[in-house]
């Protein structure tokens, strides 16, 4: 048996070595963002285009999930802020479908590497999960994929495997001189609106406010998402970028995050929409996402909050925003 195992180990050196070489090879940012065109309406390609090829500046970026995509009208916010402030302030909605704080980090990192951003507003939610964003390994740069913070989640083995596949695909494309970019990027800005209204029966009222006593596993689950939020904040601070949080609940969620609020508040200001503003069934497209009227109310409220809380806008005339 010993001789057999020795031979198997000897035999495994070549394939393992090759696999590690592929895993640690550099993933070009364009290849990364365009590698999953079928996901999230090819939004990865759009984010790449907005950050790397579009020369329009980004002054304020909203980074979050599909709640950001459907809730933040960046064109409206750009217009309102620019009109009030008197100079052009470009706002970008860089949301990407589904939860995953490491995805927020990836977007922030690439954004900071290419644009001189003044403020980043990160979407936060209730009930942070210890699972990784499914697309993260396809988009992540190698140093982030193998970063110790990546180890503390339930998908680490599959993340390494999928990260390996993303790099293998790039290697094959290079050898075969194929273009990896597929699909048509979305035109302009990141907000995606829906005029329709949800079936009221599908909107479940929130439970009475309560704070769970977290057990060991639940506390462990929060290590991973919190570590990535902290990395994102550290990255922003290192680049003199102001960070704000915006709480975007589903229709069913509490008026404010019960378990994570103190964590969020210990790092940055948390913008929490008043429940009476958005807790109307006519403002929701479905259980999780606002429709156009809902997004408009949220965006106008956000403008007011940005004037209050961002250094960038503190000197602007704040009285005119409501009138507009």
């Amino acid at each position, binding site marked *: *048996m010993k*001789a*057999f195992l020795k*031979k*198997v180990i000897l*035999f495994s050196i*070549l*394939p393992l070595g*090759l*696999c590690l070489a*592929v895993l640690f090879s550099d993933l070009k940012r364009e290849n990364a963002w365009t590698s999953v065109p079928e996901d999230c309406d090819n939004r990865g390609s759009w984010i790449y285009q907005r950050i790397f090829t579009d020369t329009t500046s980004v002054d304020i970026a909203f980074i979050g999930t599909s709640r950001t995509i459907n809730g933040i009208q960046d064109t409206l916010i750009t217009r309102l802020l620019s009109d009030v402030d008197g100079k052009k302030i470009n706002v970008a909605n860089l949301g990407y479908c589904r939860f995953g704080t490491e995805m927020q980090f990836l977007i922030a990192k690439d954004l900071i590497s290419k644009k001189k951003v003044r403020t980043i507003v990160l979407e936060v939610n209730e009930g942070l999960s210890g699972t990784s964003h499914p697309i993260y390994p396809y988009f992540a740069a190698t140093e982030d994929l193998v970063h110790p913070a990546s180890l503390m989640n339930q998908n680490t*083995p*599959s993340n390494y*495997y999928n990260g390996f*596949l993303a790099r*293998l*695909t790039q*290697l*094959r494309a290079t*050898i*075969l*001189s*194929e273009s990896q970019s597929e699909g048509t990027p979305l035109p302009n800005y990141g907000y995606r609106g829906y005029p329709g209204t949800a079936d009221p029966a599908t909107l479940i009222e929130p439970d009475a406010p309560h704070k769970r006593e977290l057990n060991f596993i639940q506390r462990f689950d929060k290590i991973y998402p919190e570590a990535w939020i902290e990395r994102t904040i550290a990255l922003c601070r290192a680049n003199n970028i102001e960070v704000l949080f915006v709480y975007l609940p589903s229709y069913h969620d509490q008026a404010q995050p019960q378990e994570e609020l103190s964590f969020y508040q210990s790092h940055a200001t948390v913008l929490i929409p008043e429940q009476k503003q958005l807790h109307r069934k006519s403002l929701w497209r479905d259980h999780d996402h606002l429709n156009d009227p809902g997004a408009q109310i949220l965006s106008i409220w956000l403008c007011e909050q940005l004037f209050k809380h961002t250094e960038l806008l503190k000197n602007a005339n704040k009285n005119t925003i409501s009138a507009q």
Partner: protein
Amino acid sequence: MLFNSISFAIFLIVAFAIFWLPALQTVRRRNLIVIITGSFFYGCWDIRFLGLLYLTATVDFFVAKSLEKSDQEKKRRRLILVSLISNLSVLGLFKYFNFFSESTAQILSELGFHPDFITLKVVLPVGISFYTFQALSYTIDVYKKRLQAITRPDVYLAYITFFPQLVAGPIARAPMLIPQFQRLNTFNETFAISGLRLMLWGFFKKSVIADNFSVVADGVFSGQGHYSSSAIIAAALAFTIQIYCDFSGYSDIARGCARLFGIDLMKNFRTPYFANSIGDFWRRWHISMSGWFRDYVYIPLGGSKSGYLKKSINLMATFLLSGLWHGAGWTYILWGAWHGTALITENVLQRRTRLRLPGLVKNTLVLVIVIAGWIMFRAESVVHAGRYYATLAGMDHGIIGLSDILTGKWGSALFRGCMVLALAGLFIVEYTIEKGVGIRHFQENRIFRWCSYALIIVVLLLFGVYNSPPAFIYFQF
């Protein structure tokens, strides 16, 4: 849990490590490990089907024990009927009920009747055709007194649940496999390494060749679009390569896995595309299944003993059943009929003419017949198959040409060249196996051997399909 997945690799390492633990060096404990790992492996597909597997296994175990004890022919006949009915009714219910119900409804509606037929919303348990036939071979062999019934349930359950062959064969025969679970095997390094070698070759056939050629075949045979004859020929050739590399690749991996556990499974393929007659093809293709149909259907029907006409009828019945075994669809039945007709015609020509054709011509003729059959086998429906044959016969003209289907990675001339080289490698290995040369050279020359391993690994890495790889074709049967 597909053989070509990371989860299977982890499972295999864990199963191997536990199986050879020094503390488990008794037959009973080893069999227990085989049963647990097999049940886990099968349960990963769908835990509910595990109950079905154990239900039929329990019935067969006790039927065989009763058969052993009984000398009364009437009682023995009743007992074997219990086994046949329990196994075939499960197979019929899960695999064929909807097909027969829908077909009958369709025929009656064509005749102007509109009866209400029910269809069952059931998922086909993976590998049901394989383990049912394996279980049946055991009870039939005990009934025929070719085999003694097993008294120990651990041996019988290990025979049924041994994971490498559980979901797609080879359909192990009890006299060959059961003794291997009755003795305590010691670890044989040479045997285990030959298993790893088989697995590597199987992965090459599956991931590099079958999965890449499936892209061409699937595009045309998906039933969408109107393809030209050149596109259909290319897809038929691609499917011919795909199905062989897929299934023989699976069989190699299964046999290789089994060898890691000291178990020798029967060979399922013997270079079938080198066959020089249809009969020869069926002695080389899916040997465990064709052998099963020969021993348990064709010979009991009378075989070739009762005159030429009866032999032809028996052949056709066997091939029709073999087609139906593959899948509950008319395409499979017609595919069986096609091969049955070809074999009967071949027998007639052999009897009535003294025509002697060169070997290469015979090989080519057999290959053309086989490829024509694969079109029916792969088509979405008989109507689709009819359209493909009509296009090939020049009665119809498709608008989607060969260049239209060679897109994506197949659009790259370099990729196509690499695939041709991979096929050339496959051909050389198959040819050396066919001619019985080269294997010894491979085993004796260490540098050549390790260079071959390295080349296969690099090719697997560069050209293997790992992003959502297609499942093995025969898993659906």
